Each structure stands twice: as structure tokens, then as C-alpha cells.
């Protein structure tokens, strides 16, 4: 079993000009580890992170989009696996941290903590699907994964994390959204 923050530290070493979409606990960890203008944090409609990511990927096919979604969030938008697979954006990487709990809502278990998200993504039709439980394996393969034609899906099996502080005004900050938009629209 891995830790979410250690996975994100490994991931951050490979992130350059990608948009990174993150919500709730994933967003708290990610913005602390990798504060950057191309972070797109989405709060207020749990589960839609994968859909935001699809929109960003469609709108900038020349750029890559990484979605960091929690397991509870994906369960609220499980159909997005099918939608994304059907649209098949080559520039979308969809990473789901699976800790079996609604961490931002008191740590209660998801309905079936053993649910096989990678299996669901594979059945939906993602171009490539991974399942990581070992940080050394993830460290070795994440660079390759990020460079593959998508949509790419990976489950990261992680422990529930320490108690987090959710700074929603910062995650929601309209100024950060405007800065993201300007940076995301900028042409090389």
C-alpha cells in the first residue's frame, strides 16, 4: 500500500506544462506538493473532476491533462469512464487514488471498498489501464504512463491519509482560475 502524498511527490517530478485537475483531498495534497498556475482545482460538485478534465483535454488537444480523482469522487461520476473512453482523448491521464473512504466527509467507507476501478476503466474502453500498489513500481513506470497515448487510467492504492485542512476559499479562488485560464490558453 502506498501513501497519496508520496505518489504525488513522485508524479510532480514528471509534471511540466500539463493541466492538473484535482479535487478535495487530492487537491489539498497536490497544491501543497506542487503549487503551480496550471493546477485546476474543482470544489463544489464532487465527482465532476474527470468531466472537467475531459473538457480541458478536448479544448487543448496539443496539451496533456492529468486528473487526480478520489475513489469517492469517481463513484459519483462512474459513467464518465464510459464517456471518456468513447471520446478517447489521447491527451488525458486519469489517476484515481483508492483509499476506500470518503476522506473529506469524515472518513466513512465507500459502499464497496474493494471495487475494481481499473477493471471498470478497462471494461469501459480506456486505451491503457494500470493498477499500482507499490511505490517503487509506480516510480519506475509513471514517466512512461504519462507519455502514452490516452486515455490512460491508473488506480493508485493508497492508505487513508492524515487529517487534512481543507482551505476551500483558496481552492475556489477566482483569481487562481483566471490565472489558470490565461496560462492554459497561452500558445508556445
Amino acid at each position, binding site marked *: 500500500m502506498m501513501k497519496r502524498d508520496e505518489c504525488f511527490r513522485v508524479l510532480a517530478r514528471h509534471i511540466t506544462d500539463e493541466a492538473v485537475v484535482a479535487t478535495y483531498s487530492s487537491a489539498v495534497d497536490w497544491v501543497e506538493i506542487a503549487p503551480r498556475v496550471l493546477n*485546476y482545482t*474543482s*470544489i*463544489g*460538485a464532487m*465527482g*465532476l*473532476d*474527470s*468531466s*472537467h*478534465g*475531459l*473538457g*480541458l*483535454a*478536448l*479544448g*487543448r488537444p496539443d496539451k496533456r491533462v492529468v486528473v487526480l480523482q478520489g475513489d469517492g469522487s469517481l463513484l459519483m*461520476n462512474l*459513467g*464518465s469512464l*464510459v*464517456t471518456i473512453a*468513447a*471520446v478517447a482523448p489521447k491527451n488525458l491521464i486519469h489517476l484515481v487514488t483508492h483509499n476506500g473512504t470518503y476522506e473529506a466527509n469524515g472518513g466513512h467507507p465507500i459502499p464497496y471498498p474493494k471495487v475494481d476501478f481499473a477493471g471498470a476503466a478497462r471494461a469501459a474502453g480506456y486505451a491503457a489501464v494500470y493498477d499500482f500498489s507499490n511505490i517503487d513500481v509506480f516510480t519506475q513506470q509513471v514517466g512512461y504512463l504519462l507519455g502514452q497515448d490516452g486515455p490512460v487510467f491508473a488506480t493508485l492504492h493508497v492508505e487513508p491519509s492524515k487529517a487534512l485542512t481543507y482551505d476551500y476559499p483558496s481552492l*475556489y479562488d*477566482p483569481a487562481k*482560475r483566471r490565472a*489558470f*485560464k490565461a496560462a*492554459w*490558453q497561452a500558445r508556445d
Partner: protein
Amino acid sequence: MPGVSGAAASGALNGGGIIAAIKSSGIEYVLSVPDIVTSSGLLRPIAQDPELRLIRVCKEDECIGIASGLSYCDKRALILIQHTGFLDSLNAIRGIAVEYKQPICMMVGLLQHDPELAPRASPRYGVRIVEPILDDMGIPHHLIGVDADVAKIQPAIDKAYAESAPVAFLVGRSPT
């Protein structure tokens, strides 16, 4: 029950005119779950139209996230759904369209609506509550019931994107 006044009281609604208005509004993407009101007159021709990219989604609230993501790329999208899906998506609309002030443009078919009646006067509870909900959320809305209403579409979409704010078009009659 009160009827719809003026030109909306009777008439026809041409789907081709609506699609032309959608295109002239700069819409590139149509995001949709099928709606029986707009199925034949809008969704089927849109699916065949090379100038529009149709994204079929599994559940209506996905459209809100996708349209938001596209708006960050200055790409315009129209969400084509049934009023039941609109009701199901209210939290996403509240959070993303209203509180995040995103240009979410929705075209909502009023299932089982009698076009001779105003939506607020519908005997169908689900239809009757749509406009009051939009009013409470501060979302401007336009009834599209006859061909004359189609002229409302482009200015309203331009305004939504200019002001980064949502808008809803309520389709009260099946376009032909």
C-alpha cells in the same frame, strides 16, 4: 390555466433554424443525453452535422464539467438535455455555473409539456418548477416554443460567454 400569450400560443418550431442559431453563436460542441422532445428535430441532425461535435454523455451533470473545461479553452458548448436531467444536475449547476460563474449554456426539453400552456401553468409538476428554480438561481432563461423565439438564442449565448454566466433555453415544443 393561463395560456402562453402571443405568438407562442400556437405554431411550429423548425429544428433547422435552431441548429443554424446554435452554429451562428459559435458553438462547437454539443453535449447531450437524449431528450425525447428534441430527439428528432435537434439531436439527430446535430449528430450528422460536420460543423458540430456531439459528445454523448452518460449523465447530464457530466455536461456541466465538460462545458466548464471547454470554456477555459475559449471553446463554446451547448448542453442539450431533458428537464429531468436538468433537475438531476442542480448541484453541479449551482456549484459550477452559478457560484463559479461559468458560461454554461443549456437547452432543456420540457418533457410532456403542452406547448399551448406556459411552463409555469403546466399540470406536470416537473415542468412547472423549472422556471421558478432558474429564477431562484438567478439563471436567465428563454422559452423556445415557436420559430420567432429562435432569434433569442444567439444574443443570449453571446451574453453568457461575455459575462461568464449561465443561460437556459426551454424547448416547449418538439422541433420538426
